[in-house]
């Protein structure tokens, strides 16, 4: 494998890891506050549809992005209402959101565009173009550093850089601010937070809203940056892989980045069986690579590599004692 192939492989890794990373951080906020969210997939799908649809109608991808975030946050609010206010089962609410999004997107798309549950192809300003970082063209021919900068670091959509920036931001917010401390406490011991006179409900709603925001960006990235339009079920299980990454990273932001990059790398390798064969001289079945994220999560959950302990109050609605 030559250097350029390696760069291309890593480039593909970054593209594939970005939606996972955004969804994973979304789940991290929600679950750290004690709200399990298996509706990441559905929120991403709804955001993918609305961002593509509104971008197609308005011709402006930023308006589309806002619409996608809005749709995702509405679903988040539904999840919050069901699991925080009405103290319903969080898993059931999440499943319901997945089903709702899968059906609703196609139904509305058919009603709006009459193209069989998809949006028209986006072009021009209705789509996120890749941005070339300053100086990328100038040093592209420099050996070693040139391709690294021009191919791998530069030339992604702005949402990729936003996703990467979200990692330190999440870390800072959760571990260096009062809001973050309270948010984490609400996921561990909501009664203590309540005793301190801080509203559990408000904190959990805030967490769920941030979750909706990040899922919205993830969905918009799928349909307006990676693709040029929405196609039925286009999230294709990425929300669930993000959940796997969340468990794999043991609910920590930096580890979430590493986990998503690792899972992205598996995805990228899946597309290059020739590279695997050249490096390992083995013909590896690409389906095996696709299953690896799940296999690794099961291994982690079984306690072979450290122990994954979810936030203690996760999944339980908070009932104030009278």
């Amino acid at each position, binding site marked *: 494998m030559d250097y350029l192939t390696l760069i291309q492989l890593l480039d593909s890794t970054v593209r594939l890891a970005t939606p996972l990373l955004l969804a994973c951080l979304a789940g991290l906020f929600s679950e750290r506050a004690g709200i399990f969210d298996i509706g990441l997939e559905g929120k991403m799908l709804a955001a993918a549809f609305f961002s593509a649809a509104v971008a197609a109608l308005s011709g402006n991808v930023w308006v589309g992005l806002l619409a996608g975030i809005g749709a995702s946050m509405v679903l988040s609010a539904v999840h919050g209402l069901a699991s925080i206010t009405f103290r319903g089962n969080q898993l059931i609410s999440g499943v319901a959101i997945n089903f709702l999004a899968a059906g609703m997107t196609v139904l509305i798309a058919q009603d709006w565009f009459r193209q069989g549950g998809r949006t028209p192809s986006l072009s021009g300003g209705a789509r996120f173009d890749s941005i070339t970082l300053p100086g990328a063209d100038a040093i592209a021919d420099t050996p070693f550093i040139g391709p690294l900068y021009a191919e791998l670091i530069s030339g992604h959509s702005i949402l990729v850089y936003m996703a990467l920036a979200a990692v330190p931001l999440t870390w800072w917010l959760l571990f260096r601010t009062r809001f973050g401390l309270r948010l984490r406490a609400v996921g561990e011991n909501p009664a203590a937070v309540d005793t301190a006179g801080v509203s559990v409900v408000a904190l959990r709603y805030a967490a769920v809203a941030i979750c909706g925001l990040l899922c919205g960006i993830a969905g918009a990235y799928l349909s307006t940056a990676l693709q040029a339009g929405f*196609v*039925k079920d286009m999230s*294709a*299980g990425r929300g669930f892989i993000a959940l796997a990454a969340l468990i794999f990273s043991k609910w920590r932001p930096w580890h979430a980045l590493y986990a998503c990059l690792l899972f992205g790398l598996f995805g990228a390798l899946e597309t290059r069986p020739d590279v695997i064969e050249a490096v390992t001289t083995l013909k590896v079945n690409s389906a095996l690579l696709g299953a690896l994220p799940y296999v690794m999560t099961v291994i982690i959950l079984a306690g072979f590599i450290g122990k994954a302990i979810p936030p203690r109050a996760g999944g339980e609605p908070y009932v104030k004692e009278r």
Partner: protein
Amino acid sequence: MTLMTKFLGAVAGVALSAGAALAEPALIFDLGGKFDKSFNEAAFNGAQRWAEETGGTFREIELQSEAQREQALRRFAEAGANPVITTGFAFADPVNAVAGDYPDTKFVNIDGWMPEVPANVQLIGFQEHQGSYLVGMMAAMASKSGKVGFIGGMDIPLIRHFGCGYAQGAKAVNPDIEVIANMTGTTPSAWNDPVKGSELTKAQISQGADVIYAAAGGTGVGVLQTAADENILSIGVDSNQNHLHPGKVLTSMLKRVDVAVYDSMKAGVDMETGGFTTLGLAEDGVGVAMDENNAELVSADMKAAVEEARQKIIDGELEVVAYYANDSCPALDF
């Protein structure tokens, strides 16, 4: 409120159609969905054409999950729909299981295979390898790099069958050509993953491919899009996809599922059943799409070569090996 009205309207529509006249044909779409711009959409177009020409009506359902297959078949059969047409290989087993319980209902399955065909079932197959052979020839003639790509949807023998014909066609034109083949996945979600389709396309481009054939349902939308973005040529499948990116799609391998559905609906309850129908180049069941969108891409040489090969295959002078023959491909290693 409008959404509510729509739901109520939909419910009312379902209730009305349930009480409609007997013996209307029914069409069941596979998981790719009715509007996949490809296989299932072709089936829908055939049914539409029949409905427009005869003024008849047909019933239809789009499956959402594997578990619905048998249920949908039984519901249509019990409601008196006849014939019940199913698209996709995955329906072969459910049809086989259900057919015996409804001896008066005729079932049609497109793309499926059964060891023994029940008396009231007709299987319709296509010689996809013949059509793929022709697009493979065109790909090899259009390629400047000497490398062409193939991206399949779910890794099943049928899709390998497509890829195998394609590779044979490409190698017939240029024996030294390299065919890079990838499958999107091994589960039905492989038909609806355009993001992965794009990623596979980029991977093949970085390996040097400059013409890529997508036989991948909804995933193919991503392949064609990325190919157009990266300024290389792509080849569509099943329906004519040339118009999706005019001037960027070299051609489409047509699989006339619409003709099969149309003919079945036209024959109606009098249809002959209990066997296989195979539609190949000779029956115009498969072919290559030529229209104004790809006119500039197809040279006179290409046209002549394709026409010659087509005639030879029809006359039996040229044999394209089917992947099914011995579950392997002479021109491509999957």
